């Protein structure tokens, strides 16, 4: 009991301190405006749907007229329209109005996209990445792009990843030292860090035939691992929906076990806490790590998971058991349980806690302290554009932070953008709670698991 009580007390202390460290919004009126717009969208499901559908279709529109036609068409389906939208609808009636409306809509989407996407290419992203690094925040770059449906597209994505690794390794080598970001108890940490998606490395991921996608993706992923090893960069393999989990996890663990990768690169996988069977997935990872000696421990990025709606819809449509927790508190409790197991499994693994939930983050900080870890022995990851404030608060508190930074053109980035927006405006989002003034004590309460 004593241990639990002291953990809880520590979580409260850490949470309060982190909250105090959040930057003030008054300093950035433009961002406050963005937040207002998102809040407006969050309040009305129809309006939110209309705006998301618009964001989604912008890249496919051929002209401002086309943009305006789509925008007004979506808005027709919103039953209660604020005055600004009624004005927009009237603009759609004339050609000049449509031109203005279409241009404004596209500009609005681009403006929002810039908040989440750090650059159209890795090179264009470098100023932002340098600034983050100066501010004590590392990055993991994620290359956005259209879905991979052909072998040529898989090759192209692998080529973009290779180029990104070169660019990042070259640029980060020039940056000044940031001791907190460069070492932990297991040794040196690479500066350059790229996140890749297996679904982009092969068009052949088939839920019922994981071996097929693995075979096809393996040469491309192997090439990137070699390159990361030679450059001293970190390669992180993202996790997507449950349809591809088996294929992705097996592939990554198999490749990393190859003798050529025993000395590097530093590499990582993702554990999704919203999956009910994520504890078993962690068993698999830890068992693998125990029997696979590598110079640099595998990094496990713990996330809640970004495909909740997809998983629920797919399961319901097929009559399957829903594979994700349907109560937020159950997911949060699992997140904490997995955090504890991961932290205790060190140095077999390195741990990255990727959450914008203040309670989950405070819990990881507190538990790391109680386990005797140094602040740099656990990494915290935030999403660029969404977790910026939290990232700064964590960095200001002397913690090791990495921002997940999408890179790519706005057209290709749209799907990503929409998903981020959805997450941000979801009812149970911590950020939304925070924005609506839920008291801090309540935000820091332990998750109440169903009996």
């Amino acid at each position: 009991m004593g241990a639990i009580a002291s953990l809880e007390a520590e979580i409260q202390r850490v949470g309060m301190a982190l909250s105090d460290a959040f930057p003030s919004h008054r300093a950035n009126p433009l961002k406050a405006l963005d937040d207002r717009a998102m809040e407006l969208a969050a309040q009305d499901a129809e309006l939110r749907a209309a705006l998301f559908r618009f964001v989604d279709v912008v890249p496919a529109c051929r002209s401002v007229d086309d943009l305006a036609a789509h925008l007004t068409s979506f808005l027709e389906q919103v039953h209660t329209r604020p005055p600004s939208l009624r004005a927009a609808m009237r603009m759609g009636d004339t050609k000049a109005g449509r031109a203005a409306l279409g241009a404004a809509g596209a500009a609005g989407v681009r403006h929002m996209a810039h908040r989440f996407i750090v650059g159209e290419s890795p090179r264009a992203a470098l100023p932002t990445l340098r600034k983050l690094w100066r501010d004590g925040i590392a990055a993991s770059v994620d290359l956005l792009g259209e879905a991979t449906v052909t072998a040529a597209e898989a090759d192209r994505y692998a080529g973009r990843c290779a180029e990104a690794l070169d660019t990042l390794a070259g640029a980060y080598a020039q940056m000044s030292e940031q001791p907190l970001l460069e070492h932990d108890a297991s040794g040196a940490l690479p500066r350059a860090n790229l996140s890749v998606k297996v679904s982009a490395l092969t068009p052949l991921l088939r839920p019922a035939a994981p071996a097929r996608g693995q075979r096809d993706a393996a040469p491309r992923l192997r090439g990137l691992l070699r390159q990361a090893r030679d450059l001293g960069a970190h390669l992180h393999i993202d996790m997507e929906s449950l349809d591809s989990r088996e294929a992705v996890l097996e592939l990554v663990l198999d490749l990393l076990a190859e003798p050529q990768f025993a000395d590097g690169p530093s590499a990582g996988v993702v554990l999704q806490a919203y999956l009910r069977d994520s504890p078993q997935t962690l068993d698999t990872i830890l068992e693998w790590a125990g029997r696979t000696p590598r110079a640099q421990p595998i990094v496990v990025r713990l996330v809640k998971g970004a495909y909740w709606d997809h998983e629920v819809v797919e399961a319901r449509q097929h009559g399957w058991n829903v594979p994700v927790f349907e109560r937020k508190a159950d997911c949060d409790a699992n997140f904490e349980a997995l955090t504890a197991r991961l932290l205790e499994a060190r140095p077999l693994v390195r741990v990255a806690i990727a959450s914008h939930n203040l309670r989950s983050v405070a819990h990881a900080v507190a538990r790391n302290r109680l386990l005797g870890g140094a602040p740099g022995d656990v990494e915290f990851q935030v999403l660029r554009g969404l977790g910026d404030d939290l990232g700064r608060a964590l960095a200001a508190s002397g913690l090791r932070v990495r921002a997940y930074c999408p890179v790519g053109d706005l057209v290709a980035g749209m799907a990503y953008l929409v998903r981020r927006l959805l997450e941000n405006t979801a009812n149970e989002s911590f950020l939304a709670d925070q924005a609506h003034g839920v008291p801090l004590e309540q935000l820091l309460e332990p998750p109440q698991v169903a009996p």
Partner: protein
Amino acid sequence: MTALPPFRNEPVLELRRATERAKLAAGLGELRLPLSVPVWVGDERRFGEELVSTDPGRPERVVAVAGRATPEEAGAAVAAARAAFPAWAATPVQERAAALLRAAAWMRERRAALAALAVRECAKPWPEADADVCEAIDFLEFYARGAIGLQHERAAERALLQVPGERNELRYAPRGVCAVIAPWNFPLAIPTGMTAAALATGNTVALKPAEQAPGCGLRVVEALRAGGVPAGAIALLPGEGDAGAALARDRAVATIAFTGSGPVGLELLRTAADVQPGMRQLKRVVAEMGGKNCIVVDSDADLDEAIPAIVDSAFHYAGQKCSAAARVLVHEALHDALVGRLAGAVAGLQVGPADDFATDVPPVIEREAQERVRRYAALAADGGTIVTGTGDVPADGWYVAPVVATGLPLDSPVLHEEVFGPLLTVEAVRDVDEAMDRIDALPVALTGGLFSRNPRTVAHVVDRSPVGNLYINRSTTGAMVGRQPFGGNRLSGTGTKAGGDDYLLHFVEPRVVTENTVRHGLVV
């Protein structure tokens, strides 16, 4: 009898999990071939070796050895069904429904074995074979409930106008003997569905499964008999066209339920229209025939979603579904991008045996089908451009490389005739209306697809589309019982909707009873 729980679709296996895949593989391991399939009329079983079904991926592997029903045996089956009809029709609908539900349970207990049989006999890849078993179960469960509803729950919905002194009632009675003539492409689901609809409503059935799939037909009849359908009420006639024709012509057949090719369906309709001397009932035909299914892709479509959906629609089960996509009509602004990506995606498809989970395109059903697809591919090459489809395929079965062709002249037969194989054409259109004009010019109207993100375009296409099943921003196959009642319009079918609420009405005859309740000026 207590009320049944509401219908829900039998869940397909979650094949993304290795444990579930292992169940199916075990089912295949336990399959003992060849099956012996009798001509099975009443309690009489005549075994024979005249009809043989083989594995389309390995034609030397015999799956089932069957008697080939003669026209005389067809006649005997109808006579037996005729004799069993009064008792089955008089059986309370709850009891008939219970027999179907027990048949569903019988299938549920044997899901892996039944799927494995469909894999072997019809080269259905695992996910589709599993879905076929589920759909068969769905039909049994759905029509069992539907028949009870027709007699009880839904009676109030059709309450007639009542005035003082008379009592009016509309009720439905079974029609009599139903000849079910089934296809091989859903070798369990479709024969089960047509048969279950007839039986649930009190008709008796003579079932002729496709000559390519007698083994699956046997399992359907075994399930029904195990469930308690009387021997006389369901006969099995493995056989060919002559048996089917004899069934359809038989004067005692009241209803013909058919799913298959257009020419056969039209012939059945002609047969049915010919009222022979001594016939005491007009034959009714429930026919599901072919299509030439089109997917329209507007300029605002999301190709990331459209390409995989088009590939699924056109090439899953080698395009051998009546719902499969045959033509893509794409806005000219997206044409080149779509063709390039589609060609790349199709080039990556794996052609292989149905029992390999990695197979995308299994063999087609038989040599004749292989030759037909190749003939159309040659026509497409002559008239247009083959953008993909020249890859090597395994030599030992009825394999065909999936083909994508473009640039065909509008009068090319490839754009009008049903190929029923892995061949997809792409044509550029100025706008959605040009696409809809071309679709409207077709004599068939089964399924259709649209990819657009503009709600106004969607509404416009919904208004203009003549097809029986239109799918927006998804694949055009995989209709689910109770969710997407399935069937075509125009020459694609009789407009009936399998798996829908009104399907059973085609298997019954309406009877209105009006009783005078006035006696000597008093209402009694």
